[in-house]
């Protein structure tokens, strides 16, 4: 129950905007923190808070890549393989990540600990290969430093 568990945060979000509708995205972020993804229940709750139809909230969830429509792992690793990063070896690096994790981009490890995405640009092209791990930047990665990071997350 978002309203019960995050009441203070919800009030803070609503106070930031002159309309309730503007709170949709920050509330979906709260819901995602709470449930791990934008579940149908979360979508209904956010819709009720913002006086919107759940379908409208669902369209927002579907449009933006950072709202997950399905369960993700405890940790989410995003690695950019767009052009500037690829010029610094991101394609080979992503292939290494897939081998290390034993999954393909877009999948979650069987233990549910890591979801791995290849993504389009995280505005850190000068420090590629670059990953965001649960939103935190990790720069100038090598296969070795990636393996180390993954071993830590899977402990």
């Amino acid at each position, binding site marked *: 129950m978002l309203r019960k568990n995050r009441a203070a945060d919800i009030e803070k979000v609503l106070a*930031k905007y*002159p*309309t309730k*509708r*503007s*709170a*949709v*995205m*920050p509330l*979906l*972020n709260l819901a995602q923190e709470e449930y791990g993804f934008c579940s149908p229940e979360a979508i209904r709750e956010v819709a009720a808070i*913002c006086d*919107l139809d759940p379908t409208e909230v669902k*369209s*927002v969830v*579907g*449009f*933006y*890549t*950072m*709202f997950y*429509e399905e369960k993700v792992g405890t940790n989410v690793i*995003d690695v950019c*393989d*767009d*052009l*500037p990063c*690829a*010029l*610094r070896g991101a*394609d*080979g690096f*992503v*292939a290494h990540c*897939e081998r290390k994790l034993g999954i*393909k*981009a*877009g*999948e979650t490890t069987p233990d549910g600990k890591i979801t791995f*995405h*290849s*993504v*389009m*640009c*995280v*505005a*850190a*092209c*000068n*420090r*590629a290969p670059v990953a*965001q791990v649960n*939103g*935190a*930047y990790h720069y100038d990665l090598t296969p070795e430093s990636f393996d180390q990071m993954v071993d830590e997350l899977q402990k």
Partner: protein
Amino acid sequence: MTGMEKHLLLRDLDVPNIRELDVYMANDGYAAWKKAVTSMKGEEVLAAVKDSGLRGRGGAGFPAGLKWSFIPKDVFPKYVVVNGDESEPGTFKDHQLVRNNPHQVIEGTALCAYAIGSNLAYIYLRGEFSEPGKELEKALADAYANGLLGSNLMGTGYSLDIRVHYGAGAYICGEESALLESLEGRIGQPRLKPPFPATNGLYNKPTVINNVETLANVPWIILNGAAWYRQFGTEKSSGVKLFSVSGHVKNPGNYELPLGKHSIQELLDMAGGSSSGRPIKAVLPAGSSSPIIPAANFGAKLDYESMAGIGSVLGSCSFIFMDDSVDMVWAARKMIRFFKHESCGKCTPCREGTYWALKIYDKILSGEGTLADVDMIAEVNKQIIGKCFCPVGEFATSSMTFTLKHFKQDYIDFIEKKKGGTPEYRAELARDTHGHHAQAAH
């Protein structure tokens, strides 16, 4: 990163911990803000920015002061919205400003609000900026705690709130009207213009939208005057500009330079030259959306007019250098893949055109391309150009149009010399078809 003896924007390179309020204030921080609120009228702030010649740093280069002057005086409330969506591949300048020099972003935002008589500003950061955003949010909290933001500022009766709003992953939200839609809680699809945001912006009220970097220049203009600011740059391209340099260079990063003083080649040299030792073949001067520039044109000066003179743009100044190992067919495919992913879906030519163009590039990369496919790319391109609602459709065609214009031989060689279908290309194609983090709406 060098370029300027003393940086106006990348001040974190000169002053350690300038992200902290006390350090910022000990180095002229908020002096312009105090000067404006206590001794200037809004119109005077606006006039100074107009006189400075400051142009928008997000890409379009529209004169900032002129944009502010379009705000009607008698309509309330009015808003300032700061564009920190920074999603153009190759661009990472606002990232550094927000993370390392957040108070200057806040001060510039505040001055803009004061100039147009607004009491509420939103800084829109792309969703991926939660980490640098924490620095900005901390800086905002410190500014409030020290009476620099809030109500009845410095006893003048003027009040200002600045709030941070996060996107959630959508390139299109860098387009100003799509950004407003997103801030209003909708999917980020662009609005029809006119009316323009100056009269019908956020919540249908008068709104100035400026890029993070644009506003970060404003404190200097107010503190030292328009004439002082104009000593940097040229008559038509005044001031300093951040250049995000990436790709095959030894020292990638952000460089701050006066506009119009240096050439592309000099920028490349400042970044240490080619990282591989191989000759640099070309550069994209404003990320994936810009016309590619062959090395033969690297003598062009870095200002709006000179870049237009060589058939390209200054744009957001994200210079992606590529050495001669880069096959332009591969590079163009990377870019079209990006636009296929990021097309917001509103216009059929952009949505379907990028989808089909990528299919053709995939076919060529997989080794099954024919020369007829090259003509087909040009044909698909023609169906997108000039037929879309917002500039993103146009941007998507740049990668195709200009790699074909300058590097058509790469396409012909790729097909005739059967360069496609290598294990590397196959792996890359397989990865993209099975699981790139795409969503249904894109």
